[in-house]
Every structure is written in structure tokens, then in C-alpha cells.
């Protein structure tokens, strides 16, 4: 156990929200028992990498996946303003099989659209983990690459790939929708080539990612993996 | 005054007494006065009874020298009302006495003879 995780374990109680603390509950039959919300209400299994088996079938499936990119409507930073134009008649992302989904369960692409505050990162991680394998991360703007103009901020991450497996970076501050479309095309290429295995990477290097995440998310008060 | 034979007089007296008695019973708030009213009422009834049994020019149904047993059927008035009235008087007396006893007891309990003070039980 690294110092950091130890640190977090110690502080867990301090940052634990009231409703997530362990409590004694009386059942209807009068028997008292303990409820530990983090244990009882959340699944604490680790993610499992699911490697493709048959090459030929997988190529076909990857083609289908690439042509059917469902994007989670989650705007993380100022870059989110560039996403709605994608859907307008001018850019019309639908023709590339791109559509927005309101729930991470059904989405396959998470767009990190710009700088990520630590607080937002926590939500982004949660959303990412709730998406289903295979899933892809598209990072927009300099901020996700090296912090951009917020490189020295006390609260903004510098590089996203330490926390989430990024498939494609789209540079710019901010990148225009055209650049975004180009990024999507890049992503499609990667998927079709079978290189966009971010979900499996995340599962395989889970401890590393978690350590990085926990380093900056100091009030880590959730299960390690948000199913 | 010729029409006013004895039985009519007594009958009227009886009815008058009866009505006076009822009037007293219904208007007087004093318990004692109510009892008196009742007594008048009772007496009125008794007089009515006697008057009903009266037959003109006959005597009381007492068999003595004046009235021989063999003439009794013609001489005396109807004896039954007389007998009845005796019983009725006794009973009336009994009731009046009982009433007075109650009045006494009630007075002892509440130190009052006002009928309006004795309506705790109602509705």
C-alpha cells in the first residue's frame, strides 16, 4: 500500500459524506444490524479486461463499432461549446454514425472537452467507469494534453492520460468542430485497426490509474470502480 | 240552581280541583307546592269518582239502622266507587307521603326546594 492510499484510507472517514457512513439500523423485527453503505450499496468488484477472440469477427465488429459512435453528453469544460455545432446542419455529425446519448450506460465515447478540475475529474471517472466495454476517450484541447493555460493551477489536471486511457487527443484551444470531426475520424481509424482498447488497458493497468486518481482526489470516498 | 244537583256540583268541584292541581303541578317551582298540587289533583280525582257513583237522593252505602240490608239496593248509592275511592285515597296518600319523603331527602342533599335545581340528568 503506497503512502498515498494509506493516507486516503486514513482520511476516508473525514471526507465520507454523512449518508455513506456506517450506521446501526433496526429492522422491522426489532433486530439491530450494521449497514455499511459503501459495502452494501455499491459493487466493489474490479474491472476485467475482455480481450477479443476471433480476429475476423472482431474486425467486423470493430467496423460496426467505429461507425456507431455514441457520445456521452457530458460537458467537462469550456470546450463543450464546440460540441453542439457538430449536430447542426453545418457539420451534421450524424452522417458519421455519431449521436449523443444522455446516459453513460449506452455511450461508447467519452469526450473530455477541455480543462478538468479535480472535482470534475471525479465525475468524469465515474461516468467513464459506468460505460460499457469497448469504450473510447476523446480528449479535446491543450488543457487535457498538458494543462494548457491552466498548467499551474492548483485545481486543474495537467495530462489526462494519467487518469483515463485516452484514445485520441485533439489539440487546440479550443479545437473547432472540424478538428473534432477529424478527431472522430482518427478514432474510427484506431477502432478499425483494433488499437482502441482503452477499456482493456484501463482494466489491466487499473492499479496505476487508481493510484494516480487517488493522488489528486484526496477525498476518495467511493468504491474503486464505479460499476 | 235547580239544575245543579249534587253530583254535578261535586263533579265540577272535582274537575276544578283536578285542574287547579295540574296547574299547581305545572307552574309552581317549589317542590312542596308541587306536592300540594299533586294532592289537589288526586283529591279532585277522588271527588270525581265519588260523584260518578252518586245516585240522586240516595244515601251512603253504609248498612246500619238507616239503611236496611234488604232495602240497600234501592237506598244506597253505587257502593263500588265508594270502595274504589277508599283504596285510591290510600294509594294517593301513600304516594304523597313518598313524595314528601323524597322532597325531604332532596332538600337534605341540595338545601334547595327549587325544581329547576334538580335537572342534573338530562339528554
Amino acid at each position: 500500500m503506497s503512502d498515498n492510499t494509506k493516507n486516503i484510507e486514513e482520511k476516508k472517514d473525514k471526507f465520507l459524506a454523512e449518508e455513506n457512513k456506517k450506521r446501526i439500523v433496526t429492522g422491522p423485527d426489532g433486530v439491530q444490524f450494521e449497514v455499511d453503505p459503501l459495502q452494501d450499496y455499491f459493487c466493489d468488484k474490479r474491472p476485467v479486461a475482455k480481450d477479443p477472440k476471433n480476429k475476423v469477427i472482431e474486425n467486423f465488429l470493430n467496423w460496426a463499432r467505429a461507425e456507431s459512435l455514441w457520445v456521452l453528453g457530458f460537458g467537462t469544460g469550456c470546450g463543450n461549446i464546440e460540441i453542439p455545432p457538430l449536430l447542426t446542419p453545418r457539420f451534421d455529425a450524424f452522417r458519421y454514425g455519431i449521436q449523443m446519448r444522455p446516459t453513460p450506460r449506452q455511450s461508447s465515447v467519452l469526450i473530455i472537452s477541455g480543462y478538468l478540475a479535480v472535482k470534475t475529474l471525479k465525475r468524469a471517472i465515474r461516468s467513464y467507469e459506468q460505460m460499457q466495454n469497448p469504450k473510447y476517450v476523446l480528449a479535446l484541447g491543450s488543457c487535457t494534453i498538458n494543462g494548457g493555460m491552466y498548467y499551474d493551477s492548483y485545481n486543474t489536471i495537467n495530462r489526462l492520460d494519467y487518469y483515463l486511457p485516452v484514445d485520441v487527443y485533439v489539440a487546440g484551444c479550443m479545437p473547432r468542430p472540424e478538428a473534432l470531426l477529424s478527431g472522430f475520424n482518427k478514432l474510427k481509424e484506431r477502432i478499425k485497426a483494433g488499437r482502441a482498447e482503452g477499456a482493456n488497458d484501463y482494466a489491466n493497468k487499473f492499479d496505476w490509474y487508481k493510484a494516480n486518481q487517488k493522488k489528486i482526489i484526496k477525498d476518495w470516498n467511493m468504491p474503486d470502480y464505479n460499476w | 240552581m235547580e239544575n245543579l244537583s249534587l253530583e254535578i256540583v261535586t263533579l265540577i268541584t272535582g274537575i276544578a280541583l283536578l285542574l287547579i292541581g295540574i296547574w299547581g303541578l305545572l307552574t309552581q317551582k317549589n317542590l312542596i307546592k308541587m306536592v300540594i298540587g299533586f294532592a289537589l289533583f288526586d283529591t279532585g280525582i277522588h271527588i270525581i269518582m265519588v260523584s260518578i257513583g252518586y245516585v240522586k237522593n240516595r244515601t251512603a252505602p253504609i248498612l246500619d239502622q238507616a239503611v236496611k240490608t234488604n232495602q240497600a239496593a234501592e237506598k244506597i248509592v253505587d257502593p263500588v266507587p265508594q270502595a274504589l275511592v277508599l283504596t285510591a285515597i290510600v294509594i294517593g296518600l301513600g304516594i304523597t307521603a313518598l313524595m314528601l319523603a323524597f322532597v325531604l331527602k332532596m332538600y337534605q342533599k341540595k338545601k334547595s326546594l327549587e325544581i329547576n335545581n334538580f335537572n342534573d340528568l338530562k339528554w
Partner: protein
Amino acid sequence: MNDIIVKLLWTLLGLFIVLNWGLLMGATMRKIVARVAHRYGIPFYQPWLDLIKLYSNRSSISHGVMFYLGPVFRLGGGLGIFLFLPLIYGSEHFSNFSWAGDLILILYFQFFGMLGMALGASDGGHPNSVIGITRGLGQFTTVEVPLTLAVISIALQYNTLSISEIVAAQQGGFQNWTLVTNPLATAAAMLSLLGLFREAPFNLVKAPNEVPIGPPTEYHSAFLGILRTNGALLHVVEAALFMNLFFGGATHWVEFIVKTFLVYFWSVFVGVVSPRFRIEQSVTWFLKIPLAIGILAVILYI
């Protein structure tokens, strides 16, 4: 026994046609909507890709047994309607299992899928699912009212509730269609159809901006795949039901395709140009003009 197997094979063929037509029709409609908005729109094969993707997702989660069974019920509902509905008039092969029950069976079989879906989605434990379902059920109750009256009206008109016989009675040209012979019932039913298909203005159930897509919030991967399959199937089957009842049925597949397309197009057409109703608005809407039309339709045939 042999008969049954042959029957099953034909039914599977019908299912294959209907399913693919449903997917294609969905894509076409989306393309039409896109063109209305001056967009290019999705490629016509997009629904197939989406389905393949969903079925091939590598991971999935389950909230419980009922959550797992929900989509099964849902597709069962759609498939059931398909099975009990004669598709092509006069075709022995494509009348499916319609001898097991009449129109009433189909009307009530709609609930099978709805109920299962409602239960499955609620088992997911997501509040938005339940909100969506309550809205959906509430809206559905009044959607059915004009439809019921329309069904009564045509039952009176044709003196039967057997779909095959209703279609048979409409043969012989345009002038024999219920649309012509009983326009009021048709109108009431077509207004109900708007609610059945849940396009705007009656799409509060899905309401993407308020409760993320309502009931299927938690559904994903193969679950969602099944739901989408059902969606495609159901659109065609419901349209086919209306086609059979009001538009003379279909004697061959081309007619089938054209007519179901037009029926579905009616709902999309209204949806494209409409805003969205609140739930109490949509609940009461069906109890106003559509109900009045339905009552008139019945009165005319008493």
C-alpha cells in the same frame, strides 16, 4: 407436426422481412427528419450497425433478475403482436398464428411488453426510469380510449373482431377501405396512433432533456439491442395493425411496405412539426377531440 414446422419457417421469414423493414423504415424516417432540418442524416444502414454494436458489447451489468427479464418481456410483447397478426391478406404463409385469437388479443398483448419493460426498468433502481414509466403508463391509459371506441366502431361496422375478416371486408378497391367507409373511426384511431408511437408531441416518456431517455436509462449492450430490435419490430407491426384495420390491409409485400411506411410516416410527420406536451396535457388531450371523434364514430354505427 410437419405443418407446424413449415408454419414456423414461414413465420420466421416473415419476421426477417418485417424486422429488416422496420430497421430500414426507422432509418428512412430519421433521414427524412434530418432533411427537414437541412441535414444529410444518418446512413440508411445505421440501425443495423447500432444493433451489431449493441449486441457485441463486451461487458454488461445486471441489476437483478427482473432487470434481465425486462427486455425479454418487451421483445416478447412485440413479437407476440407480430405472431398473432395476419400480415398479408390472403396469404396462408404470412398469416402467422392469427387463428389463436382476434383483435382483442392483439390490443391486450401490447401490455405484455409494456408491463415487462416497466418492471425491468424499475428493477434497475433508477428514479428516471420510474418517472418515465409513470408518464408512459399514464399517457397510455387515455391513448387507448379513442382507439377502443374506434375498434368498437369498426367491429360494429364489419360485425366481426377477426382481423382477417376485417381485411377481407375491405377488399375490392380504395372505396371499400375503412378510411373511406368509416372516416371517423379512422380519425380517432390515427390520433391514438400518435400516442402509441410516442413521437412528439407525446414523447415526454423518453424526454431526453428532462429524464435521460426515461425507462431504458439503465439498459445497455444486448439489453438495449433487444429493446431496439423490438422498437423496429413494433413500429412495423403496429403500423400493419392499423393498415389492416383502416387501410385495406395488404395483399402482397410491396403494398405492405408502402402502407406501413405511410402509417408510420403520419406519426413522424406530426412529430417533426410539434413541440412536446406535458404529461397532464397529453393525458387530457386524448380525452378531448379524439374522444369526441371516437364517440361520434360509435354513434354513427349504433
